């Protein structure tokens, strides 16, 4: 499947030189994620304090919760004062807000985005639909439990949660990070096979590498 979709091909550059492109090897690194352990507890504590006060969010509105993100960025709610910032690319972010239900098609993108984020990374599940399916408990296309696919640090219940609830969620997440309990990335690396099995169970056309950096 993957070989068929991304075949080796020869590319002629604009300057006339020819080179062979092997997409699965050239574009992706297929190395498994590693558990990262800190050696010094004091430094780790300082790091956690710093991380907790600069939560940078991926700008990926996966569901209807994304509509309450916009008011958060206005002076009325002003999430920026808590060190929260929105970034356009997963490479610059460390917090992923799953804003609501995830359809199978989005889950595939969410996994890619989550894996591309730099460690340590945190996930907030927004809305009841990430907890147990919520309103879509009998839908054939939405996942019911987010924590079976990616590790989740905290949930914000409600449909839809108010901006104040989101601010409270940030505060709660900060406490978890400062206490050193937000090790989702390590959890993902430890239980990598379990997460992958769950993901592959519902994503039927798996045409991407197992782990994309």
């Amino acid at each position, binding site marked *: 499947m993957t070989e068929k979709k991304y075949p080796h*091909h020869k*590319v*002629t*550059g*604009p*300057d006339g030189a020819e080179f062979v492109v092997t997409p699965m090897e050239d574009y992706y690194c297929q190395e498994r994620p590693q558990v990262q352990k800190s050696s010094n507890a004091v430094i780790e504590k300082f790091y956690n304090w710093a991380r907790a006060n600069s939560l940078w969010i*991926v*700008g*990926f*509105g*996966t*569901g*209807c919760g*994304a*509509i*309450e993100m*916009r*008011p958060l*960025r*206005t*002076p*009325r709610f002003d999430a920026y004062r808590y060190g929260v910032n929105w970034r*356009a*690319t*997963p490479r610059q972010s460390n917090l992923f807000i799953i804003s609501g*239900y995830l*359809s199978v*098609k*989005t889950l595939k*993108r969410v996994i890619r*985005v989550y894996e591309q984020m730099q460690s340590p990374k945190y996930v907030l599940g927004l809305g009841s639909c990430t907890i147990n399916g919520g*309103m*879509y408990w*009998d*839908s*054939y*296309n*939405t996942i019911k439990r987010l924590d079976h696919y990616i590790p989740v640090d905290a949930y914000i219940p409600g*449909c*839809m949660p*108010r901006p104040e609830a989101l601010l409270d969620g940030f505060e709660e997440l900060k406490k978890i990070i400062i206490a050193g309990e937000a090790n989702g990335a390590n959890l993902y690396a430890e239980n990598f096979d379990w997460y992958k099995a769950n993901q592959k169970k519902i994503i039927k056309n798996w045409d991407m590498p197992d782990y994309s950096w």
Partner: protein
Amino acid sequence: MIKFDEDRSRFPEKNPDGTNIIDLESGRFTHLWQGPVHPGITGNMSLELIVQGDEVMSCKTHVGYLHRGFEKLMERRRFIQCLPICVRICVPEPDFNEYCLCATVEELAGVEVPDAGQWMRTLLLEMARLQGYLMWLGGISGALGMGIIGQWTNYGRDLILDRFEEITGGRVYHMHMMPGGVRSMTPDGFNQRMEENLREISEILKDVHKTMIENTVFRTRTVGTGYIDPLMVNKYGITGPNARAAGILRDVRIEYPYLRYGELDFEPYLGKDSDIFTRTLVRYNDTLTSVDLIRQIMSKMPSKGPFMADMPNMLHFKIPRGETYIRAECSRGEFGYYTVTDGSGYPRRINARGPSYTHGVSLIEKLGINANIADVAALMVSLHIYPPEIER
């Protein structure tokens, strides 16, 4: 040394039917995905672009990231249970879903809504339209790099959401309409607070006119971009402000006056050029109309009186076999519900027709071709595409 051809008109070669010949192997084209993780995309959808230089050669919409199967879920629910679920079809303006569902049930079951209930619904729909437009004004300015305007208009939207909260208790999802009427009338002192908010919003809109519509950068970017031919309106099923920008009156409020719109005095703005700038003008003027309409509704609305018809127990409510189509004008165009009932307490099929269905797939695939990559985001926002309506 890379050499570019000066004469761009020869590229790419064309098929006899006018479509571009695209050969990805040749190395002259780039395959580019705009979305779903992209700041310049409206909601969770993606555009698959094939570009040469910075010119789009082929544009394909990919939707389905937000599919929850509403139409299937509603078949498993009673009519009254459909209400909280159907509002999730369109997040920025959920009230039109409530209205369409309630009006469908009322028409098929032969229920008459009392006068006060009708006025209250008109007020709710107009408030929803106003906040939808305010959000859009922030969106188009954001897509063209003027983020500050979004801060002002979103503040204005928050004011409307506060009034919604006051009436209904919910900020985003309201579920205030019920088959047979509405749940309550406006609380005491509502008109005065609303009037204050409208005054504030009018001030914001004046600033938006000064900083966005009179802005040279904005004009240079948008005039002449994304032109819709008036002949395309029927061919592509264009409705609402996008059709009005092409000079064709498509406004359900005027064509098929529903609720109390027949008693209100307003005239939609018609554009001629139908580029991004004209669409902005149409929506900007519609925002002003909306502010005016809310004032009119508040002055004409009865403050007392029955607002809910006598309804049987909705849990055992059965609707005879029939079908109908109910339409309403939302801020993006014609919103409608095609409903088929089969005599049971459950709908046989409800098909929601969102305006984005036509704008977001066939139209943008046509308009995207030969656009500049930098304009694609503005083009998309200018059509006011909202993906959950497409896939539901």
